[in-house]
């Protein structure tokens, strides 16, 4: 049992490192997130060419057939460089949902892998608070199709997505897992309006309002009433991927902070000569390494047949990522002093992304409780 990367994975890791080192500086990132789109279409095309968008997609559907470890490798790189492209939303979550979405959806995987389709999952609602079973949006039967009414909250990367995957209740009560159905809606669907905005980490999201949106039966993704399982499985992959992203971001922060402590002088010496600050960095290092180990275990667990093992490992990884991410980010700012508070340094940008990672799909407290309840 060798947990080090195999040759193909090492090649992937090298290509990830090389590509982002070339394309992503703090300055380039700043320009990207300030742009209309919020990321670079050229980068996205490159992602496709490098095969990253096809990870997890079978080869006969245009993918490269990799698995969670490959996703982890890409996500760590994304974390390390604060990458703004919608990889998580489209390739990880979108890919997972399309893969289980039935025949029509499978065709779209080819587009996804080729970089011709971006996706966003519109599932969370103003009152759902991370509870995947809480869906108030209604899909009423209308002829052969449905009519969707509701409000989807903080849909990440929605403003740039070509299609939205929208969940709505076809039966059941507000908070039951049964009775949720997924629908695939083009961005410009009549009756669907997006209120786009930036999120604290510089990325994009939107609240999505559905005001009697008429959809055909062919727009259903996966089984009617059976959407919860699809979302749960996709979110499981998403939180593991986010944990890997957090690891990359923490790694970058640790390196920046170490460098700062070694070069910044006060009282005539590098501040890194103060034992107190060294030990604080040691605690950051330990938090990072333990979060890394958990993210790796969770990534490998995603291939495990036992759903409880998968779910607990994923929850554990998210808890570690959330807590370690906050600790590392807060300490990195503190150890940088006033400079850490500025927009100029990269430190604050990592801080904000790590905060957002903790919030996405449930924070550390939330997943700690799930971990306990899944016992």
């Amino acid at each position, binding site marked *: 049992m060798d947990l080090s990367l195999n040759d193909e994975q090492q090649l992937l890791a090298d290509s990830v490192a090389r590509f982002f080192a070339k394309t992503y500086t703090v300055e380039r990132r700043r320009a990207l997130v300030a742009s209309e789109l919020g990321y670079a279409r050229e980068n996205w095309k490159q992602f496709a060419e490098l095969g990253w968008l096809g990870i997890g997609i079978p080869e006969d559907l245009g993918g490269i057939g990799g698995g969670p470890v490959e996703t982890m490798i890409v996500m760590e790189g994304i974390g390390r460089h604060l990458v703004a492209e919608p990889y998580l939303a489209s390739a990880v979550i979108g890919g997972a949902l399309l893969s289980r979405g039935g025949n029509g959806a499978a065709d779209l995987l080819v587009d996804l892998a080729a970089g011709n389709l971006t996706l966003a999952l519109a599932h969370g609602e103003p009152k759902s608070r991370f509870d995947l079973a809480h869906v108030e949006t209604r899909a009423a039967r209308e002829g052969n199709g449905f009519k969707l009414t509701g409000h989807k909250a903080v849909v990440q990367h929605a403003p740039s997505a070509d299609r939205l995957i929208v969940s709505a209740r076809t039966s059941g009560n507000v908070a039951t897992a049964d009775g949720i159905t997924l629908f695939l809606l083009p961005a410009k669907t009549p009756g669907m309006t997006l209120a786009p905005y*930036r999120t*604290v980490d510089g990325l994009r999201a939107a609240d999505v309002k559905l005001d009697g949106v008429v959809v055909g039966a062919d727009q259903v993704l996966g089984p009617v009433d059976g959407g919860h399982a699809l979302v749960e499985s996709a979110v499981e992959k998403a939180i593991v991927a986010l944990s890997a992203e957090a690891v990359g971001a923490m790694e970058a922060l640790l390196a920046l902070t170490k460098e700062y402590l070694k070069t910044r002088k006060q*009282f005539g010496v590098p501040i890194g000569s103060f034992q*107190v600050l060294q030990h604080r960095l040691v605690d950051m290092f330990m938090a990072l390494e333990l979060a890394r180990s958990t993210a790796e275990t969770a990534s490998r667990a995603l291939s495990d047949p036992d759903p409880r093992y998968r779910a607990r490992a994923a929850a554990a990884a998210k808890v570690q990522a959330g807590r370690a991410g906050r600790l590392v980010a*807060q300490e990195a700012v*503190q150890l940088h002093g*006033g400079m850490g508070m500025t927009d*100029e340094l990269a430190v604050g940008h990592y*801080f904000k992304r790590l905060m957002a990672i903790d919030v996405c799909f449930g924070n550390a407290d939330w997943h700690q409780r799930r971990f306990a309840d899944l016992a």
Partner: protein
Amino acid sequence: MRMKLDAAHSRFRDEVRQFLDTGVPLDLRDKCEAGKRPSKDDHVRWQRVLYEKGWMAPGWPVEHGGTGWTPLQRVIFDTELGATPAPPVIAFGVTMVAPVIIAFGSDAQKKKYLPRILKSEDWWCQGYSESEAGSDLASLKTRAMADGDHYIVNGSKTWTTYAQYADMMFFLVRTGGDGKKQDGISFLLMDMHQPGVTVHPIITMDGGDEINSVFFDNVRVPKANLIGEEGKGWTYAKYLLAHERTNIARVGLSTRLLAKLKRIAAEEQMKGRPLLDDPAFRARIAAVEIDLLALESAVVRAVSGDKTGKPPGPESSMLKIKGSLIQQDLTELLTEAVGAYALPYQPEWFEPGWNGEPVGPDYALGLASTYINWRKVSIYGGSNEIQRNIIAKQILGF
């Protein structure tokens, strides 16, 4: 929960509360309740209300406009003021430079500056930090060369809060060279509206622009603006730092944040019940509330026996550390309380006059910005690491 006071101080607190409940102009109260940023004019308007009431400068000697309150009364006032949704009183004039002017300034300086501070006619800022010096304040490099009855100042200052609004700056500057680095530092006052003074905003990671770098290019400062003696600036700066720490615990602000947290947690739902009823979240709120009661007790304890108003000792470092940690816990819990709505970033919403539609519940707006911005409170005014060094040295005797 708040600590109870004896009957006399309870009455005093009630009196203060009564005024603050009704004294804040309604538009300012609404703005601050909503977490919006007050404008320069808002600050000044509110400070003039306090001035009219005679409560602008409680800590000053009565002859200059102070209230004659005991130290405990001042703590009570500061706490209630901090708990009130109103623009914070800008400290640079009234509680930072003024005590130095009162203690070490000339009669002319007192006569010139104190009334204007009292009436908020001058907006002051502080020129202490320099980018190379950091926590090692005394290694500052900005220099003032004598030139007749003026100094010519060259150099720069940084982390200067509200320099963009300021009419005046008090600052530390090197007027002598040799000996210990603390020697040869003087304390000067500068008119910000003059050639050679350039203010550059520093954008902070929350998107704010309230801090600045200030550059001096042959700026002429009259020698009449020297406080006390040339070369004694370090002594005055230390005196100021001691005074600055009076309200360092910020119990009032934390009280307000705590109340807001409970309000939001009662509103937010978790699995169909108020988040406030979730035992885990509830425990985290209780933990910080208990810490806050401890802090308030420590603050009251520190001043209750003191009738002299002597500047607080090194124990104030403890109040600063604990106060900052509590504020940071609260601002963090607030973002956690609102779930995914912690993420939208709509800075335009905080600007005066913006009428767009906010995303998510009103109370969620700005919580993330505050959380991010509030990381500063364990850094500025002497970082928590520096405060721990002070306690280790001055209290524990290392």
